[in-house]
């Protein structure tokens, strides 16, 4: 038996199989963290979605805190807000959009201002002065105070109330409240100033940055116009802004504050400004199944607290989770694919240290469902597959999660491998390739199909029993895949490069890519030559589970449905069928790397219907039966034969060997020399169960016992009188606990570990 070389853990070298640019492009396809439509439309980028979320819960304090993040004077801003967000509300497409402005007003009215955090707020050294009053100077004063500039405001007004009143038309009580807010800020006011040019020039000398209302700025630098992008008269170095509307003033003040930041650092006020104002969003939100509704009517007084809560509850919290809602893998990791892909990619870049995302990259079933459900075609399977290959190429990929499956592939392509032309033919027109799982789970069905094809298809049908290489492809072991491809190409050449009749959609896909041969599904051939006489549909309605190997292959999907109809089956329509079909958990070797996840995947597939499932992939059929659901492979129905019921891992190997032996005998009249032992090995039920769970094959146990017979090396447990023998087979040490019987051995327990153990000498 050949074994796979285990890696070391101290090698340091690096190969990239997916460049950073390719990964960045892939990640940019995920729109999960794009802003909601309302947020993107707001020039202040207020997190409206989050604000409505808290308002809907009646938490006005938190909602107000979100609003206060973007403006120092929420009451003035919400009073003059023109709500560009409302027309972008997704609900407008199916009814009334959320009345965001009225909810916002209610939040400001009913919300209680939280305490301002004083942690890490250190005053800046550069001083600013603001001359004049009005909306722009008021908002700018607030913005500069937030940025911790020591700011002095010179104005003609006599007190805070007058200063507020000069800026905004508020009711008396609102004016008082905002004046109180202004007073509590860390600002110095010089009231009752004359603001004549001499006074201003004198004060300007004392400051690092000069800001002024538009009227005063015009007086100070009449020959210069302010740049409206950066709010600056560059020659005079005076920051100013218009006061046409509340929105304008507040937005200009934000721009002006950024200009101040850049000026005091002696940086160009034109560059490094980031994104200012409203943006466009690439977000996708599926509103299928959401009913449109009317907004809660609002009186002249605005919403009551309860009305505001009700209106906020209408918000659907726009987001994109198209891929997550149908994929067990993504929903289990609770991460949107953009983030998960980034973390997996980073994992491949770690040279020394922990690789925390190994399990995550090995748990994806590589089924490609996300590429169909994602509005932008994000392909998580490509990310995980390339990450696995990267880990393999850098010798960082642990062998443990995939070794059993890889060894199984080696077994399929060595001991259980068979390649023969149809008797009477040297060169064949076709070759039947049932796939390794068909031979392992339904050997009798494979036999029936091959005999039928030989009988009814002209030009000769050869047979290849083996693995197509999908196993190593999924494991990221590209060198092993290349070897399989080479082997298959050589065998196909011997048969005269026939067209392949595949019995499994995954093989079909893999062989098309790897051998370049013409590959047709066996179902297609049967549709062409007519159903075998044995074909019988089920009497009850059935649900079809489309194989992930056939994603994007409408022709195969249609053919399966046509065959079922021809057999008289009634097919139930299910959600997530055809291209949207989820994976049963076998794909991508999930069943080996993350058993629990694979079980959840199978359960998710079965959620769609209570009817028996018809599959056209043997692995899906087997996994569904294990989850307790009646399930048939379409070939079972066509040939009236049954697959084995839940064969364990040893039976799956035995079935493949037996199939080879039986075919050689029945079709080619050849005897396969099977090794015969002169003793028996029997197993307790417990042993069988634990071996299947622990992925220990009967052949492994028998090797241990054969070694024991030769060396007599074992430990006798004096308490139970059982013997415990061990053998190192490849990268694993197998231990078998047994008793000797008259005919041979009775195995009671078996376990294994990968760690190698040896006696220490001279230490």
């Amino acid at each position, binding site marked *: 038996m050949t074994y796979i070389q*285990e*890696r070391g853990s101290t090698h340091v070298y690096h190969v990239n199989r997916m460049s950073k640019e390719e990964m960045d492009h892939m990640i940019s396809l995920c729109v999960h963290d794009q802003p909601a439509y309302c947020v993107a439309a707001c020039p202040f980028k207020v997190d409206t979605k989050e604000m409505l979320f808290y308002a809907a819960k009646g938490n006005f304090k938190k909602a107000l805190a979100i609003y206060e993040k973007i403006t120092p004077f929420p009451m003035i801003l919400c009073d003059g807000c023109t709500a560009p967000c409302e027309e972008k509300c997704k609900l407008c497409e199916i009814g009334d959009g959320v009345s965001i402005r009225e909810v916002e007003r209610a939040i400001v009215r009913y919300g209680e201002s939280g305490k301002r955090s004083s942690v890490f707020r250190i005053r800046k050294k550069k001083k600013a002065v603001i001359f004049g009053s009005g909306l722009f100077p008021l908002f700018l004063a607030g913005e500069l105070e937030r940025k911790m500039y020591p700011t002095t405001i010179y104005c003609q007004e006599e007190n805070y109330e007058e200063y507020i009143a000069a800026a905004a038309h508020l009711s008396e009580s609102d004016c008082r409240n905002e004046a109180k807010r202004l007073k509590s800020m860390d600002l110095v006011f010089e009231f009752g100033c004359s603001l004549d040019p001499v006074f201003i020039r004198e004060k300007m000398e004392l400051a690092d940055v000069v800001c002024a209302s538009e009227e005063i700025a015009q007086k100070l630098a009449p020959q210069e116009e302010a740049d409206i992008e950066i709010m600056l008269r560059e020659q005079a170095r005076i920051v100013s802004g218009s006061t046409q509307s509340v929105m304008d003033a507040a937005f200009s003040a934000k721009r002006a504050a950024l200009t101040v930041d850049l000026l005091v650092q002696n940086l160009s006020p034109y560059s490094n400004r980031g994104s200012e104002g409203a943006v466009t969003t690439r977000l996708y939100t599926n509103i299928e199944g959401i009913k449109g509704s009317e907004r809660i009517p609002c009186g002249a007084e605005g919403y009551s607290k309860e009305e505001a809560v009700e209106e906020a509850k209408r918000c659907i919290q726009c987001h994109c989770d198209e891929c997550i809602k149908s994929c067990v893998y993504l929903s289990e990791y609770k991460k949107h694919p953009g983030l998960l892909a980034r973390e997996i990619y980073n994992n491949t870049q770690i040279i020394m240290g922990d690789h925390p995302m190994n399990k995550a990259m090995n748990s994806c079933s590589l089924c490609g469902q996300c590429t169909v459900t994602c509005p932008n075609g994000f392909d998580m399977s490509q990310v995980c597959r390339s990450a696995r290959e990267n880990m393999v190429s850098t010798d960082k990929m642990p062998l*443990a999660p995939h070794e059993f499956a890889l060894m199984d592939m080696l077994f399929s392509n060595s001991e259980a491998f068979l390649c023969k032309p149809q008797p009477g033919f040297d060169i064949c027109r076709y070759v039947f390739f049932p796939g390794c799982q068909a031979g392992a789970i339904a050997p009798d069905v494979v036999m029936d199909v091959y005999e039928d094809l030989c009988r009814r298809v002209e030009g000769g049908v050869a047979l290849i029993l083996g693995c197509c290489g999908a196993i190593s492809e999924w494991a990221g072991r590209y060198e092993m895949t290349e070897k399989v491809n080479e082997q298959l190409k050589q065998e196909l050449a011997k048969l005269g490069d026939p067209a392949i009749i595949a019995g499994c959609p995954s093989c079909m896909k893999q062989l098309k890519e790897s051998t370049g041969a013409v590959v047709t599904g066996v179902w297609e051939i049967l549709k062409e030559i007519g159903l075998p006489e044995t074909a019988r549909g089920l009497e009850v309605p059935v649900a079809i589970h489309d194989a992930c190997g056939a994603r994007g292959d409408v022709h195969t999907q249609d053919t399966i449905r046509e065959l079922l109809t021809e057999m008289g089956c009634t097919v139930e329509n299910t959600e997530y069928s055809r291209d949207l079909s989820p994976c049963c958990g076998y794909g991508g070797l999930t069943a080996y790397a993350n058993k629990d996840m694979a079980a959840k995947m199978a359960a998710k597939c079965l959620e769609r219907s209570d009817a028996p499932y018809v599959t056209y992939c043997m692995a899906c059929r087997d996994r569904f039966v294990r989850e307790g659901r009646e399930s048939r492979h379409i070939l079972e129905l066509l040939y009236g034969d049954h697959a084995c019921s839940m064969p364990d891992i040893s039976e799956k190997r035995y079935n493949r060997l037996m199939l080879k032996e039986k075919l050689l005998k029945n079709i080619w009249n050849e005897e396969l020399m099977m090794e015969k032992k002169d003793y028996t090995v029997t197993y307790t039920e417990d042993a069988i169960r634990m071996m299947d769970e622990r992925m220990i094959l009967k052949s492994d146990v028998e090797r241990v016992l054969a070694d024991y017979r030769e060396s007599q090396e074992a430990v006798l447990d004096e308490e139970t009188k059982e*013997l415990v023998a061990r053998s190192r087979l490849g990268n694993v040490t197998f231990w078998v*606990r047994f008793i000797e019987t008259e005919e041979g051995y009775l195995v009671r327990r078996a*376990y294994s*570990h*990968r760690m190698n153990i040896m006696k220490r*000498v001279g230490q």
Partner: protein
Amino acid sequence: MAVERNYYTIDPEGKLTCNKCKVPLVKGKAKFMYLENGFPVEMPVCPKCGFVYVPEELALGKVLAVERALEDK
């Protein structure tokens, strides 16, 4: 003199016998090796032939946990 460190110790307590040498296993020095890492341990060992016994609980417990941790290094 440096104190010898063992990561794990199991004493056979006279309950195990080497089937080949017919002598009781004793607590002896052994070493676990995995992915180029080594750990000194004390396991039941045959004083004559050096057969080292790894009990099931250890293989499926501590050994498995260390294997997993090393695999992700």
